[in-house]
């Protein structure tokens, strides 16, 4: 309810913040809890057919022939398509179109799509898949990225220009070799981050239907309807204005639904062919093979320090295991280096990242795209340096804080920065100082920091149009309707738009209707990725709502014969600021404004500032209008007998600029910290080379994700350092707080039992092996015992 004097955006005319910064019931939650929300698989159309995809059992094979005649002859089977029906290559990144809707000549991983059947029901479709005969010539699979890079005579992806090298980036800022040479301490280590997957509880699903007016409508569980719209037009060879994409309410995404998948093209093509609605729902197994999750990365880091703990320079070499297709890999390869240059300032940096094709499900973006892996490495490096220099790890991070209104070594402009405040909050909430001193052997605390982008300065395909746009109309019954292309994937973006509109127009959220992610009804938005929606769509929404507020206040002022700026809108009323007894319900104020102006509608657009990136090739990739900052402290208990790491609590302090809706922000922080914890302790998305590249457990039982009982206490501590670029100062909150969980846990394990876990995940066998290795070194006299004066249980002698 307080006014914020510092932030120009949203405070024009002294409009009170009646919504921003509060706690809200989400605009669309209650219908979800009553079980009436229609997610994609809940849609059912008359005469709807069901589709299923036949998938490759081989990790690498040439397709010699496909005979679908027996399947087509079955009663209840309506159509079968293969790769040849949709041969146009596409890619979410326009520079790397290296996949097709279904395989045309080769299958590149187990689970690659070969053919698709539309039938009366799923059982018939599944039966028909069995009758499709595919003749393959099996090729040698490559599962290791380094081996793949060397195998020049065995290129995996037929569209690749450079064999199995998917992307290479080498950038250097300052003189890294000389800087490291002159440093008091250089820490050198190898890290391995195993890949993980999103595991949203809703499987991918799509439904397509050609309406009687000839418009192909595709409903899809996607988080990027606009890009799906573009790629559908390209692959189907239809003009974009003949296609409508609708994203129904979505059951989680986390990056796993941020590009087109085979099912969307297949249902669209089959709907065109059969003239009937066609739906396809992935099985959970198919979701695992569709993947596009976090890249495995092998990282070699050399980091220089002065003896008082200042980071001098970083030299990073990274191999990314990309899987069979590019997906977002071009961006991932840049992000693996570009996002490392805050929250710590240093003057010399070199990174050399190479992404390889392998015969595995393709990797792509998962929450914290491309930067979670290097963050793990650098935060462990800093912890090692702190120990060797005898410094407190939080003090050392405070000492290296890059600060506000500055630029990173790679040329990104940083605005607001609450990192030091984040560190102070976790230090005090976790009682860090006494725990570092007093916790016995087997228990420990660790800290880590991070930064993340609030959207990217440039869209995926170059254009000069706005990156976000919102249209709002006001209704003479006293309601607002917001039209936005943004994808609400559960993160609450529809509610965010309602909060902003409610704040600007004095409306309760109940009187605001948000219509989103329908390409026929809504302005284009680029989608839910790179944590862009609050900042970008939020700014566009502020602009549209403020235009309407001016019209409404003008009309009221005219009737009361007072200046527009004396009128404020709050609690469903227009009020005279100087005589609050004089007020009128908003519905009436809207009628006055509509009488004066005609239909009350306004648009807002947002485009990024173009002067906040580095001036070199690739210098725009990873640059953002504003950066969030995060610090975590994790407390763990390690059982030296079993190697089990029990994470007790993670304190999560996150600078989101300004929390527009506090519980929703906390929920993003908690969900992020949980997901990082999961990657640290239990998750690994791998295929088994010993079994022909199959996924060893493509289910939510075998791919273990944390339950209520596994998940630690998560203490969300909101830090607000408003940024001039964000709406009311807001920055992102949904991805940054994932990053520090992993290194904070690694560093806490070291504090507990004195072992460095440089490979993920920290499973009991790995922890035990590291404990035994340490015990051996202690016996050999190379190490003194860890925490020798405490009596922790089960110390390995």
């Amino acid at each position, binding site marked *: 309810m307080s006014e914020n004097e510092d932030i120009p955006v949203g405070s024009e005319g002294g409009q009170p913040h009646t919504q921003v910064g509060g*706690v*809200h*019931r*989400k605009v669309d*939650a*209650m219908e*979800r*809890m*009553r*079980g*009436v*929300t*229609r*997610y994609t*698989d*809940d849609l*059912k159309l008359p005469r709807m057919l069901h589709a299923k995809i036949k998938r490759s059992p081989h990790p690498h094979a040439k397709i010699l022939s496909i005979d679908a005649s027996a399947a087509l002859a079955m009663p209840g089977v309506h159509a079968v398509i293969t790769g040849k029906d949709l041969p146009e290559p596409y890619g979410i990144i326009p520079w790397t179109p290296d996949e097709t809707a279904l395989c045309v000549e080769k299958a590149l991983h187990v689970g690659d799509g070969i053919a698709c059947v539309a039938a009366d029901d799923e059982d018939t479709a599944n039966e028909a898949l069995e009758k499709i005969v595919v003749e393959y010539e099996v090729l040698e699979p490559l599962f290791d990225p380094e081996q793949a890079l060397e195998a020049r005579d065995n290129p995996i992806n037929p569209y690749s220009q450079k064999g199995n090298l998917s992307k290479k980036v080498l950038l250097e800022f300052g003189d890294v070799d000389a800087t490291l040479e002159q440093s008091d301490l250089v820490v050198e280590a190898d890290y391995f981050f195993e890949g993980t997957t*999103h*595991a*949203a*509880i*809703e*499987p991918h699903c799509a439904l397509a239907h050609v309406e009687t007016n000839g418009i192909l409508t595709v409903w899809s569980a996607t988080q990027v309807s606009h890009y799906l719209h573009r790629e559908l037009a390209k692959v189907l060879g239809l003009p974009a204005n003949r296609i409508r994409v609708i994203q129904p*309410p*979505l*059951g*989680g*995404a986390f990056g796993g639904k941020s590009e087109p998948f085979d099912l969307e093209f297949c249902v669209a093509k089959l709907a065109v062919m059969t003239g009937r609605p066609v739906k396809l*729902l992935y099985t*959970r197994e198919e979701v695992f093979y569709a993947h596009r999750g976090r890249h495995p990365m092998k990282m070699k880091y050399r980091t220089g320090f002065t003896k008082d703990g200042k980071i001098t320079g970083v030299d990073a070499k990274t191999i990314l295991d990309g899987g069979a297709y590019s997906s977002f890999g071009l961006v991932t390869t840049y992000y693996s280096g570009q996002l490392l240059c805050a929250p710590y300032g240093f003057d010399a940096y070199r990174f050399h990242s190479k992404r390889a094709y392998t015969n595995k499900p393709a990797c792509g973006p998962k929450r914290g795209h491309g930067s979670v892996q290097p963050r793990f490495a650098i935060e462990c490096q800093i912890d090692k340096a702190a120990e060797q220099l005898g410094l407190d790890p939080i003090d050392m991070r405070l000492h290296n804080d890059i600060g506000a209104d500055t630029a990173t070594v790679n040329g990104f402009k940083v605005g607001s920065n609450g990192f030091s405040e984040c560190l102070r909050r976790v230090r005090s909430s976790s009682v860090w100082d006494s725990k570092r001193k007093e916790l016995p052997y087997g228990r420990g605390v660790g800290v880590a920091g991070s930064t993340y982008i609030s959207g990217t300065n440039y869209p995926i395909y170059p254009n000069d149009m706005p990156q976000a746009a919102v249209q709002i109309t006001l209704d003479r019954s006293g309601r607002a309707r917001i039209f936005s292309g943004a994808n609400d*994937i*559960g*993160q*609450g973006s529809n509610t965010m738009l309602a909060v902003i509109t409610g704040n600007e127009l004095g409306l309760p959220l109940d009187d605001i209707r948000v219509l989103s992610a329908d390409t026929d009804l809504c302005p284009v938005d680029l989608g839910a990725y790179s944590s862009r929606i609050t900042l970008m769509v939020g700014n566009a929404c502020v602009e549209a709502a403020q235009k309407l507020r001016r019209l409404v206040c003008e009309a009221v002022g005219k009737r009361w014969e007072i200046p527009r700026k004396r009128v404020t809108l709050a609690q469903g009323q227009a009020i005279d600021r100087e005589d609050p007894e004089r007020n009128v319900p908003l519905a009436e104020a809207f009628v006055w404004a509509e009488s004066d102006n005609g239909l009350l509608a306004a648009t807002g657009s947002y485009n990024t500032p173009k002067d906040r990136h580095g001036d070199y090739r690739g210098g725009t990739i990873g640059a953002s209008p504003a950066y969030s900052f995060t610090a975590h402290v994790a*407390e763990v208990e390690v059982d030296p007998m079993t190697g089990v790491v029990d994470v*007790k*609590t993670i304190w999560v302090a996150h600078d989101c600029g300004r929390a527009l*809706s506090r*519980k*929703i922000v*906390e*929920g993003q922080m*908690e*969900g*992020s*910290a*949980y*997901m990082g914890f999961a990657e640290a302790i239990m998750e690994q998305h791998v295929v088994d080379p010993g079994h022909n590249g199959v996924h060893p457990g493509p*289910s*939510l*039982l075998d791919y273990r*994700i944390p*339950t*209520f*009982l596994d*998940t630690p*206490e*998560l*203490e*969300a501590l909101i830090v607000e350092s408003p940024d001039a670029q964000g709406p009311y100062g807001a920055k992102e909150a949904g991805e940054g707080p994932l990053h520090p969980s992993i290194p904070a846990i690694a560093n806490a394990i070291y504090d507990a039992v004195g072992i460095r876990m440089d490979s993920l995940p920290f499973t009991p066998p790995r922890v035990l092996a590291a404990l035994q290795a340490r015990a051996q070194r202690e016996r050999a006299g190379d190490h003194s015992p860890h925490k020798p004066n405490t009596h922790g249980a089960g110390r390995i002698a």
Partner: protein
Amino acid sequence: MQLAIEPHHTLLEVLRYQLDLIGSKQGCDKGDCGACTVQIDGKPALACLTLAAHAEGREVSTVEGLGDAHGGCHPLQDAFDRHDAAQCGFCTPGILLSADALLRARARPVSRQEVREALAGNLCRCTGYTKILDAVVDASEVMHGTDDAPKSGTKEAAQ
């Protein structure tokens, strides 16, 4: 209600496809995620692992009926709404059914640890579970008062 069903159809298939009761969700179709949790004779059951024929003569409750005895909105639903305990909401119907069974069985305010144990079969990928724990404990206190709450209160002390 009487219904002719395919003998091999699961309860989830019959609920979703025959009766259009779409509130029970399919997340894995093999009993791993809990999104399809319903109640059979008042006890939580996985509809995807239950043959529909098994429900003959039994009382099956789904999320659509949860608010019926509470003027349309069960205190759990209200608490989830206040705490923003549903993000994408896909796991929520199943979690509500498991939580309702717990609250009816205890008939008193519950502790966070009790909730964790009762809901361990329901996966949520969005929330980190924190807001769900807040909401279930809160709803139990709304329904039963806080006088006889377990000693640990609404939030366990950090360990």
